[in-house]
């Protein structure tokens, strides 16, 4: 989708063959002299120490999980503990070469990654910086407890802090790294670069890719590592993230100053099993995992297989790959072979592998082998290793005693959980010290100039309808809001399918291509999971992202990223992370069953998301302004029926300046006294037509209220209206069964029971597929069906001849049939 790239038939039709570059396997050669020179004897001892810490920490968890105690400290841990005993060399070797600003995103099996990364970062940072981090974190709450464990040096204290913060998080303590809101599978500590760990297999891949995108777009140093498992290569979103990160445009079309491809390392901790399914020979077909790099780009993702039982081999590979990533030549794929000696979880009977196999890997134990190497070369004595071991156990026993103490370490309460579901902040710019990069001055933008000439109302001063080309349309409101925020917040970036050049499938972004450089507006692959996942990673890294789903029906393709990632991370981080992400979702029609669905109920059902659905140009602008100044994930629904609608309600037309719609407040579109009609989305306009007919034909005065917001939502105005009218009908284009207005109806009915003259009636689309456009009137609620439903279920209208059956019998008949 760019005119600068020629698709030349002479080239693409030419005969030839692809030559794949070689993918090295375990090529590391140990030269201890070199490694000693690089890390020093203490550096190597530190590696051994960290491996022992990880092993002991997880052995402790295993004992607590299976026996209810460790070192005489009893504790009943109700939550999960997915252990990685056997994989210590891989995580410690990786952390050895990562700096504090390099980020790792992990999996449900990431205790080792958190500890290794934090120990490594704490060692690299100046003591004062570490102290500053610890003092400021959670207002010093975690540190105050870490101090009670006993310490003699700064290193002791930071070790206490890291171990206690992690364990307290696993035990769901308020002083845990995420106040217990993440737990074992989601714990993280961002100040040391240990980023959110993800309990959805492969879930970290698109998010880490988004974090790498953030680093690239905002010119921040450091690389990003997605620590995922071998089995996650079977997950679509992982492939999507890989393809996204490998796009040619980063080097071919983006400004050279942007720095090339996002610095993302897809680091596969390849322990050969996904729970019990064996990726090597059973559930995958790649033979050697590193091979898959060859399918992605000409560099084969610089893929390598690395011996993850040797920490120095891993460190060596990470160092070399980091250089490639920093110079924009990513992405990189590492196949770090390792082995999980422990079960997937305590219920693992190891029915899928032989005892002999486990014993072979136990014989190759990385901690013993690395200890022997150091002893054999006189770096450390066996008794000194014993001392390390004893000291680690001693410290952990004290950490455990404190973390197990219900008095000293309370848990959060329900109001706290409520308080972290949204961050509810207003942020003009996430980088106030930077100028927002534009390709042209805002005032020169052709689209903005054209909009300025339009009539900002749907009718002129004589009440005549303004033609669509002359009227300010809903899509113009969206454009004004986007352009405004792009000009203020330099971190804001937008991507999606056909966003650039085409200007979005519905011309909302027409004119943005001229305004913005590639690194602020670009086309993504057709990868909804990666589109939204990148937005999540980008936002939680500190930037504002706007992503687009061309049709609401494609939301299923990004199901995990919206429902499990965007919705969860603010709360699972206990409010430490913000998620300024706007997911623009276009709701279609005319294109049949897979392009015409309003899935607002699905997103409104998931706690943690905000859901907006504007219906007028004024609201489109005001609500997008609101979303783009907020710090929460917003699913922003837009109806394709309304992109070209003009402003019918604001007397003064769409305001020209900046304004925000008050969040959660429904809009009164027409006053009335006999019945309240609540609408969501474009049904508003059919409800208004129904109100006209009710008035003219039956003398019934309808009050029409446009919900606009699904979450959060203030129902007070609706309740006040129903108290006045005593009657309520709700209409939506979403299918009737389980639609969001059922929730509204139930709630309002409870609050208004005593004043109701009839039960609340919800009129949705029929519970079947969206038929061809010629038949859509059978599907979506129409003005006529609204009047019929009122006549048959609320207020019989003298003389009314219904055109449809809206009776209770019909309702129940349909339910019986499931339609």
């Amino acid at each position: 989708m760019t005119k600068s790239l020629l698709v030349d038939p002479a080239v693409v039709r030419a005969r030839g063959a692809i030559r794949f570059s070689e993918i090295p396997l375990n090529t590391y050669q140990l030269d201890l002299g070199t490694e000693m020179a690089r890390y020093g004897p203490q550096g190597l001892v530190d590696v051994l120490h960290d491996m022992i810490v990880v092993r002991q920490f997880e052995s402790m968890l295993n004992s607590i999980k299976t026996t209810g105690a460790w070192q005489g400290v009893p504790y009943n841990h109700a939550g999960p503990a997915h252990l990685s005993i056997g994989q210590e060399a891989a995580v410690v070797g990786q952390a050895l070469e990562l700096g504090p600003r390099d980020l790792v995103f992990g999996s449900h099996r990431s205790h080792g990654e958190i500890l290794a990364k934090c120990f490594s970062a704490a060692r690299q940072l100046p003591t004062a910086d570490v102290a500053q981090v610890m003092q400021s974190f959670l207002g010093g709450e975690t540190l105050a407890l870490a101090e009670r464990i006993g310490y003699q040096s700064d290193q002791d204290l930071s070790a206490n802090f890291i171990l206690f913060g992690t364990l307290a998080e696993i035990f769901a303590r308020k002083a845990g790294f995420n106040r217990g809101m993440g737990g074992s599978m989601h714990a993280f500590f961002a100040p040391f670069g240990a980023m959110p760990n993800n309990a959805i297999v492969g879930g970290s891949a698109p998010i880490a890719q988004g974090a790498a995108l953030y680093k690239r777009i905002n010119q921040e140093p450091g690389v990003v590592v997605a620590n995922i498992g071998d089995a996650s290569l079977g997950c679509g979103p992982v492939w999507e993230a890989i393809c996204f990160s490998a796009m040619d445009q980063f080097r071919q079309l983006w400004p050279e100053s942007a720095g090339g491809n996002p610095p993302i390392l897809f680091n596969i901790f390849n322990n050969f099993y996904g729970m019990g399914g064996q990726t090597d020979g059973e559930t995958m077909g790649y033979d050697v995992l590193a091979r898959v790099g060859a399918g992605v780009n000409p560099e084969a993702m610089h893929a390598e297989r690395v011996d993850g039982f040797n920490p120095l081999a891993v460190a060596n590979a990470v160092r070399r790959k980091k250089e490639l990533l920093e110079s924009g030549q990513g992405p990189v794929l590492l196949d770090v072979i390792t082995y999980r000696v422990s079960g997937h979880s305590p219920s693992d009977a190891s029915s899928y592998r032989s005892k002999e196999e486990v014993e072979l890997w136990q014989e190759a134990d990385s901690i013993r082998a690395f200890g022997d190497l150091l002893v054999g070369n006189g770096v450390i004595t066996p008794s000194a290793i014993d001392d390390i071991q004893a000291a680690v156990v001693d410290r952990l026993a004290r950490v455990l005693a404190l973390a197990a103490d219900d008095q000293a370490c309370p848990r959060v309460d329900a109001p706290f959980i409520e308080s972290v579901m949204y961050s509810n902040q207003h942020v003009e710019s996430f980088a106030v010290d930077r100028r927002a990069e534009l390709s042209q001055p805002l005032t020169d933008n052709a689209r903005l100039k054209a909009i300025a000439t339009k009539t900002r109302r749907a009718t002129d001063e004589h009440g005549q309808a303004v033609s669509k080309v002359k009227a300010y349309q809903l899509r113009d409101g969206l454009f004004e809001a986007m352009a405004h925020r792009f000009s203020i917040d330099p971190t804001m970036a937008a991507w999606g399918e056909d966003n650039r050049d085409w200007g979005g499938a519905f011309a909302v972004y027409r004119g943005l291509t001229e305004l913005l450089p590639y690194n602020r507006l670009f086309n993504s692959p057709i990868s909804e999971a990666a589109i939204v996942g990148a937005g999540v990673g980008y936002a939680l890294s500190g930037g504002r992202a706007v992503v687009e789903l061309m049709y609401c029906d494609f939301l299923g393709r990004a199901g995990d990223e919206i429902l499990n990632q965007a919705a969860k991370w603010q709360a699972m981080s206990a409010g430490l992370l913000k998620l300024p992400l706007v997911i623009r979702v276009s709701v279609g029609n005319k294109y049949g069953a897979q392009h015409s669905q309003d899935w607002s109920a699905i997103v409104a059902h998931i706690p943690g998301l905000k859901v907006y659905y504007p219906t007028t140009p004024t609201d489109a602008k005001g609500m997008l302004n609101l979303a783009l100044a907020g710090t929460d994930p917003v699913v922003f629904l837009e109806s394709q029926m309304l992109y070209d609608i003009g402003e019918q309600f604001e007397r003064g037309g769409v305001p020209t300046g900046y304004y925000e719609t008050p969040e959660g407040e429904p809009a009164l579109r027409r006053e009335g006294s006999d019945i309240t009609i609540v609408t969501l989305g474009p049904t508003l306009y059919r409800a208004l037509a129904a109100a006209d007919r009710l008035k003219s034909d039956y003398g019934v005065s309808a009050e029409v209220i446009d919900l606009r917001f699904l979450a959060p939502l203030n129902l007070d105005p609706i309740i006040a209206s129903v108290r006045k009218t005593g009657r309520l009908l709700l209409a939506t284009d979403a299918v009737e069964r389980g639609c969001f207005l059922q929730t509204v109806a139930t709630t309002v009915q409870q609050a208004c029971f005593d004043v109701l003259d009839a039960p609340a009636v919800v009129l949705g689309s029929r519970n079947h597929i969206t038929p061809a456009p010629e038949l859509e009137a059978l599907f979506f609620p129409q003005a006529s069906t609204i009047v019929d439903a009122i006549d048959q279920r609320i207020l019989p209208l003298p003389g009314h001849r219904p055109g449809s059956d809206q009776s209770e019998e019909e309702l129940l008949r349909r339910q019986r049939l499931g339609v």
Partner: protein
Amino acid sequence: MAEVLVMPQLGNTVESCLITAWRVEVGQPVDPSTVLCEIETDKSAMEVPAGLSGLLLARLAEVGDEVPVKAPLAVIGQPGDDISAWTGAEPPAAVAPTDSEPAAVALPEPIAVAVPEPVPVAVPEALPPPAPAVGSSLPFAPAVGMGQTGPKAASPRARELAAVYGIAIDSLTGSGPRGRVIERDVLAAAAGQGSAAASSLVTPDPAPEPVAPEPLVDDSAPAEPSGPTGTTRAVQTQSQPEAGRPDSGSGIGGRVRLADLIGQTARSQAEPDQPSAPPAPAAPPPPDQPLPPEPVPTSGAISATHPALAGPIDDPSFPGPVDQTVLRGIRQLVAGRMLASLSNHAQLTFDSSAPATNLLNLRARLKRSDPVLGMNGVTIGDLVAYAAVQTARQHAGLNATLADGVLSRYAEVHLGLAVDTPRGLLVPTVRFASRLGLRQFSSQTKDLAAKAQSGSVSPDLLSGATFTVTNLGAFGIESFTPILNSPQVAILGVNAIRPQPTIRPDGGLAVEQRIGFSLTVDHAVVDGADAARFLADLVALVADIDIAVLD
């Protein structure tokens, strides 16, 4: 020092594990990887490694035990370690220790193993009408539940307004869906009574500003919000405001709930002299007004539920002390088998009785007989059971078992004897009872009963019977319905011997001692006539028991 190994928690939802095998004997050395035992959870089978080095000093649970997770499983240590702390005290906290469930015994060879022939379909006399097929759709009955029957349907808003105007809802014709009385009907009625109130909902004319309705009549009490059912009743007694309408409802926001009205009715009933609760005379309804369709319940039972009535029935310590026991052991087993029996057999009981004169006489003579004969201890029960054995041998259809669709009929009778023991009901088996003479039979039954009482009966003898006798005669039971000792297809209940009026051959009335029998059979394989023939033969044998024992 010895260390205790606990049952590992192998999964978040695992609460206990079943030990399926021990791999190490006490006294044998173990190292951390030695597999100590094999266990099963609800999800999987796995092995428990010792985790420690040393000697296995004690196993704290046995194969078949269900051990809670984190409960002690074994003690590992060195020779001479003191392990009394684990072994001296309570045995392992095994969950529901399965008591000596009898091992399967080889059943005696059946003479005939046959899939029962198709039983003639004997339609019971009183066959219930065919039940509707589960899941079939009920014909839609729009009149039901749609507001056309039962109390007059009226919207809460209409009721509220009617209360304000003092209009009886039942006097109105509803213009809402399905005849529901809605706001406009009340407004129209109010207008008809001369109210100034009108609404655009009544006439489609240009709507005047809604006028706040003014109370028409003397009912100036502020309107309480009320739930639909509650208000229906309140409105029905509108003319008796004090009695029919509580001062304030107990619902949220003072909403009048059904309970308030019932309670108030009860109060009125309980205090009939209250002047504020005048009976019918006050303001009779207009002649065209239908009677209230659902009179307010006045039964004492409802009155008694009213909290205002004090007494033991309101004792907050209800229900008093309760002793709760989780079913375990024999009781658990019996419970399961009884229910299984009832659900697996078509049980039908036949009652009959036999003249007991000869029985009583024979018993008296035996009791007095020379001890050398060894017959002094033969009881009425022995004699009856002996007769039952003889009868069963002649009726192979009832000396049979039915399992997995296979009917096994036996040439020999192995008699199950129901014994009431301190541990619960046990049914030991007199094997080859049909080969025993009366003396042997009597002595064996005594021996078995004693062992059952003391708990020393061999588990092998707790199954394998082909026919069972259960005797409640000593308790004066006149008739009961014994439950089959599955898989057997018949069980004989023996009842009390009672004097009964009878007609002498000369036509005069006399009193005769008779013993009752209650025979339960599995109607799936035993027809009524077969059971009747069995009883007839048994009755004949018992009637002439002194001759029968000579066999």
